[in-house]
């Protein structure tokens, strides 16, 4: 299988994630969209490693997975606290930083 297919899949996944992040209003969904984008990046990295026979980008994947796990823990905790405060998690209603 040509590695280009992997790259195209990765690109598609990333685009879908980004669009989902932009157009969904639910924080949990947006959060999942971030995870999709991260994994799209992971896929591209692994495909790159295969294509150029280099381990470097595979190492980066491990980092990304670790960071994603940490980020999921923190992000979910924040969402939980927002829910406790506001009784909803709709992102367009959270605009405390409005100038």
């Amino acid at each position: 299988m040509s590695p280009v297919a992997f790259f195209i899949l990765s690109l598609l996944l990333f685009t879908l994630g980004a669009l989902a992040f932009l157009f969904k209003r639910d924080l949990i969904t947006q959060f999942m969209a971030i995870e999709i984008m991260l994994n799209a990046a992971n896929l591209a990295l692994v495909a790159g490693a295969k294509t150029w026979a280099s381990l470097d980008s595979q190492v980066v994947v491990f980092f990304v997975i670790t960071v994603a796990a940490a980020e999921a823990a923190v992000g979910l905790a924040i969402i939980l606290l927002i829910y406790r405060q506001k009784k909803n998690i709709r992102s367009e209603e959270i605009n405390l930083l409005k100038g």
Partner: protein
Amino acid sequence: MSEYFWLIPLFPAASSFILVIFGRWLPKKYVSVQAPLAVLLSFIFGLASFLKIYPRGLGHEAAGLSKTLFSWIHSGSFQIDFTFWFDQLTAVMVLVVSGVGFIIHVYSIGYMAEDRSYTRYFSLLNLFTFAMLLLVMAGNMVLMFVGWEGVGLCSYLLIGFWFERPSAASAGKKAFIVNRIGDAAFLLGLFFLLFNFKTASFPEINRALTDGRISSSLATLIALLFFAGATGKSAQIPLYVWLPDAMEGPTPVSALIHAATMVTAGVYMVSRLNVLYSYSGIAAEVVAIIGALTAVYAGTIALTQFDIKRVLAYSTISQIGYMFLGCGVGAFAAGMFHLYTHAFFKSLLFLAAGSVMHALSGELDMRRMGGLKKHLPITYSTFLIGAITIAGVPFFSGFFSKDAILTQCYAQGKYFLWLLGLTGAIITAFYMFRLIFLTFHGQERFSAEIRHHLHESPPVMTIPLIILAFFSIIAGYIGLPVVFGHDLNFFERFLEPVIIRAYETHLSLGIEWLLIIISSVIAFVGIFLAYVFYLKSPHLPHQLASRFPGVYRLLFNKYYVDEIYNILFVKPLVKGSEMVYYNFDLPIIDGAVNGSAKTVSFFGRILSLVQSGLIRDYALVFILGVAIILGLILF
């Protein structure tokens, strides 16, 4: 003990410090002991130092005690030390300041007993004593200026002691501002002195002058600038206007600061720089003329005033005029002698006036007094002694000192000044006895309510009066005129080492006698006139006033000087400041500051529109940004 003479000013300083820091926890009784005790200690050390230099003083040796605590200002070859100095002139001032100061501290215990701010009062009075002792013991002009400003500050604080009263607060402000005008001139003089003499210490100033290194026009300039400073501090024409208003302060303060010590600082300064003033004939002439004019001028105002303390204030101005007249005609010793006797009789008069006020529940207006003689016997008799002394009745101290000045005027051939002095003397005798007759004799003109409270003051107040009265009588006998014997003027001989005698006076004994008889007669004429006007036929003053309404109104309104100053200086200054405020401060200074702030906040508001607070917007911008950068890199 005399080797520790430099401790003299430090006792009141330490006492004041303790009262300021710990005052609120100290009981009243303790304060009443500590504050006078500190001044008494200064007096004792002063006396010891005086006895140490006394034998040397009567010779011709110029010797004094000197102690340099540390080098104060040091720049290249220029050096000013923190030096205390105790010579004959200092000795006189230290003994007067601490001696009279101690008596007034004691009197204050009684006078201020009911006051809420008892501790604050004594801390300020101590601080004043420190500053005044620093002034007289300073070994150079710069250190003297520190004391000079220090007494000015204390004067301001004590005039405005009852600052709840707007009149007291503004009187303090007036005193401070008028004194600043004089001090600006003093400071200019100091700069000229430092620049040209390269030194500020008194012996070196004298040496520079006697060496002839200084041109006489420069000496004149410096002397006149210093004298302008003295007209502020010592309330002479044209800067005397603050002193009558300064009577808003507590009466013992008027006695100590505005009669006995601070206001005579100018005379001390001129005497201290006697070499400079003898060197410059013009400056000495100006000092003499201003002094003589002030002596008469202030006396004429005192003639028509009804406020008992204001009469005394104008009298003080007039008497200081005599001191300057003495200094101006080269009789520095006579000027200092008058300063010394004046300290006793004028503080006596003020304290006795305070006792009258105390008895009359704070009444100041002589029109609502009268007949107090039998109610206040001690106050009356001591007041009478003070009045006799200042009027120049023979054999009281004021007679000898005033006569010494007038004789010197005559001997120098300055007959016009001598005549002015005599005029002042007759006026003095008249207004003092007008005061006595209006206050203590005649009908009782106070209300029944006040009469009910009428009482002689407690011993803590009357004993100081008696002591001061005693000294008012005898203080003059250390400076007898030459007609009583050749070497009887101990005062002048004591001061000889520090005061140069530019010229010898040769008056025949006959003329000396004649002058003494003339001034005695003058004193009695003044008293007799007051008797005729205010006791024998009390309608006469009214007749005279209605006969010459213009003159009366002019005198009663103090020559309208306050009003004239108001129009000439105060109003234009306020107007000018307002103009600058409205045309420059508000539009330009404030405009620039506020304008820059407004510009920043305007752009801030525009930029803040970007901040929607919504995650989606940030994400969109972020993604677009990444896309653009990626596009730029790839293509």
